[in-house]
């Protein structure tokens, strides 16, 4: 509290705005004479509620923005009936979902069927807890934040398979099988591409990783991990793998509606179905937030001299840009086939991600400067050259043999 009172400048005070509820509760509990452990637990609960509240609002907003953006990409108008410019559409959707009949198939394992939608939301919320949103705002500043994030994120696969298995029907089962194969395959490049950041930063703590990306090269290029040779490749691999992890188009095979109805969500209705969507969108926020933390400098300002703006505003601005790019991709590319998806992961992304590890090491020992660029760029270009050559090969008959015409 004393920090809040002595900070001179209004934007600097705004820096603490998201933590204000937590601080207030802690102060009140302290005044009431509560023991220290109770104060910190109450603080954590309020901090977690803040994050959940912010991202529930973000989920509602995104469900509208997504429909609007996709509509514009297809030269339509999009929802515009509920409220001003359709601003009440998420409310209408929510009421609709809540009042729908909850159907449980006769052959379903009812307990697992009930547990799956709940368990799919929890990991996403847990993962959101460790991300540093601002200079002073990391809800749970864990030492092993990155490890926690990935281990919690792996729980999503379990609940997806739980939903597919418990529904007792063929489409959910097929969707769940697809989801498992896809998520396991894409988790590898996702984690490997994040490893380079860990190697260079020397820590698994997400706030520290952001701190290490402070400063600017040449006075205006931010010192984010994206603007290094290995970071560029690892960032791209992370981006693609994140799309697949979040089950977004063009990798939305688990719920490919033209083939398997809605995948693992086929047998769900009403609020359980809404929970699946909520889990999906919260997972999208979480993975985008992690990508921003690892490669886009977290809450760091993109240009020098902009440091006076509260840091969490920069984080959410970057989040908005990343999410918009996901929407753009969704509005552009058709869904890939399952064999293309697997081949892309194992033959393309994983080798590329693996190459960023030696590149990051060389970059570190070459002094992180010009020498680092000169030595790592050729290494990283190897897969690109191979891909280009394979891509440009044409099938051509060498000599045409007319077996019947020549006789």
């Amino acid at each position, binding site marked *: 509290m004393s920090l809040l009172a002595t900070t001179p400048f209004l934007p600097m005070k705004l820096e603490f705005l998201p933590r204000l509820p937590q601080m207030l509760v802690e102060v009140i509990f302290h005044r009431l004479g509560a023991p220290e452990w109770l104060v910190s637990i109450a603080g954590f609960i309020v901090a977690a509620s803040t994050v959940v509240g912010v991202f529930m609002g973000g989920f509602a907003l995104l469900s509208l923005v997504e429909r609007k953006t996709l509509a514009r990409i297809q030269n339509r*108008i999009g929802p515009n009936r509920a409220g001003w410019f359709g601003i009440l559409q998420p409310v209408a959707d929510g009421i609709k979902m809540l009042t729908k009949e909850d159907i449980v198939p006769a052959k379903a394992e009812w307990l697992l069927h009930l547990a799956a939608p709940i368990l799919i939301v929890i990991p996403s919320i847990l993962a959101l807890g460790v991300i540093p949103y601002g200079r002073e705002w990391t809800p749970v500043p864990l030492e092993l934040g990155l490890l926690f994030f990935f281990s919690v994120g792996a729980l999503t696969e379990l609940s997806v398979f739980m939903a597919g298995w418990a529904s007792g029907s063929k489409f959910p089962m097929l969707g769940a099988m697809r989801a498992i194969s896809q998520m396991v395959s894409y988790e590898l490049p996702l984690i490997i591409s994040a490893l380079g950041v860990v190697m260079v930063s020397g820590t698994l703590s997400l706030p520290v990783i952001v701190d290490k990306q402070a400063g600017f090269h040449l006075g205006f290029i931010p010192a984010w991990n994206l603007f290094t040779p290995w970071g560029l490749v690892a960032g791209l691999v992370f981006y693609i793998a994140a799309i697949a992890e979040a089950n977004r188009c063009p990798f939305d095979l688990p719920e490919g509606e033209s083939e398997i109805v809605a995948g693992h969500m086929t047998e769900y209705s009403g609020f359980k179905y809404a929970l699946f969507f909520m889990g999906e969108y919260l997972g999208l926020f979480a993975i985008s937030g992690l990508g921003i933390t690892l490669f886009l400098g977290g809450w760091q300002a993109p240009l020098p001299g902009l440091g006076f703006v509260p840091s969490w505003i920069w984080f959410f601005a970057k989040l908005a840009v990343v999410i918009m790019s996901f929407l753009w991709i969704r509005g552009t590319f058709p869904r890939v086939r399952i064999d293309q998806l697997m081949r892309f992961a194992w033959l393309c992304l994983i080798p590329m991600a693996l190459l960023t590890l030696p590149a990051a090491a060389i970059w570190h020992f070459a002094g992180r400067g010009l020498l680092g660029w000169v030595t790592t760029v050729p290494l990283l270009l190897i897969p690109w050259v191979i891909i280009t050559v394979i891509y*440009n090969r*044409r099938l*051509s008959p060498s000599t*045409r043999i007319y077996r019947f015409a020549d006789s």
Partner: protein
Amino acid sequence: MSMEDQTSIKRLPPLSQWSLPGLGLLKGLVVTGKNMVQSFYREDRMTTVQYPEERAPISPNFRNFPFLVYDNDDSLAGLRCVACSICEKECPPQCIYIVLERDENGKSLKRPKIFDIDVSVCMNCGICAEVCPFDAIYMDGEYELSTDNRFEGLLFHRERLAKSAAYHAKLRPEQAAEVEARRKAEEEKKLAAQAAKEAKAKADKEAKDKAAAETEQKGESA
């Protein structure tokens, strides 16, 4: 597998014909990005018509259920229909029902007492409009006809069917203008014929009077 397939191999084209992988993806992104941005300021991008508030203009060739044309202001007295029942007889699904109006002496008043069209039966063929020799029935352009009563609500009486000549002119300007010109010419011809008849009758009468007067004079003189 044939021999051709076995001998075909994958070859690299000359370097000038190479392209970069992923270029097509970027092109696709540019296309959708253009769509997205231009939809905010280019009118021709947004073709959506916000239906209940605005309506797309209907083509003059659009036709949907017949209506009866009336001249002047009175929608029932001004009906062009003379209840000749040609349309009733021609109608393939027989959805028209006409009763001629008569005065107390049983003399025809040349207008319908009942003119009903069952639009749940009507098949929009337009034969009634084609056969009508009095330009009294034409196909309408109305399409918002939903009703909560499928019997009474879909049986159109003459009050509902009667629509002004001005409405016809607005709906199908070309056809209405042609009909109007033809009717005017007929009217003038009729008037001229009547005038000629009257003139002839007058002349006849005068001649008769003259002859009578002459015979009278003759009689007097005789």
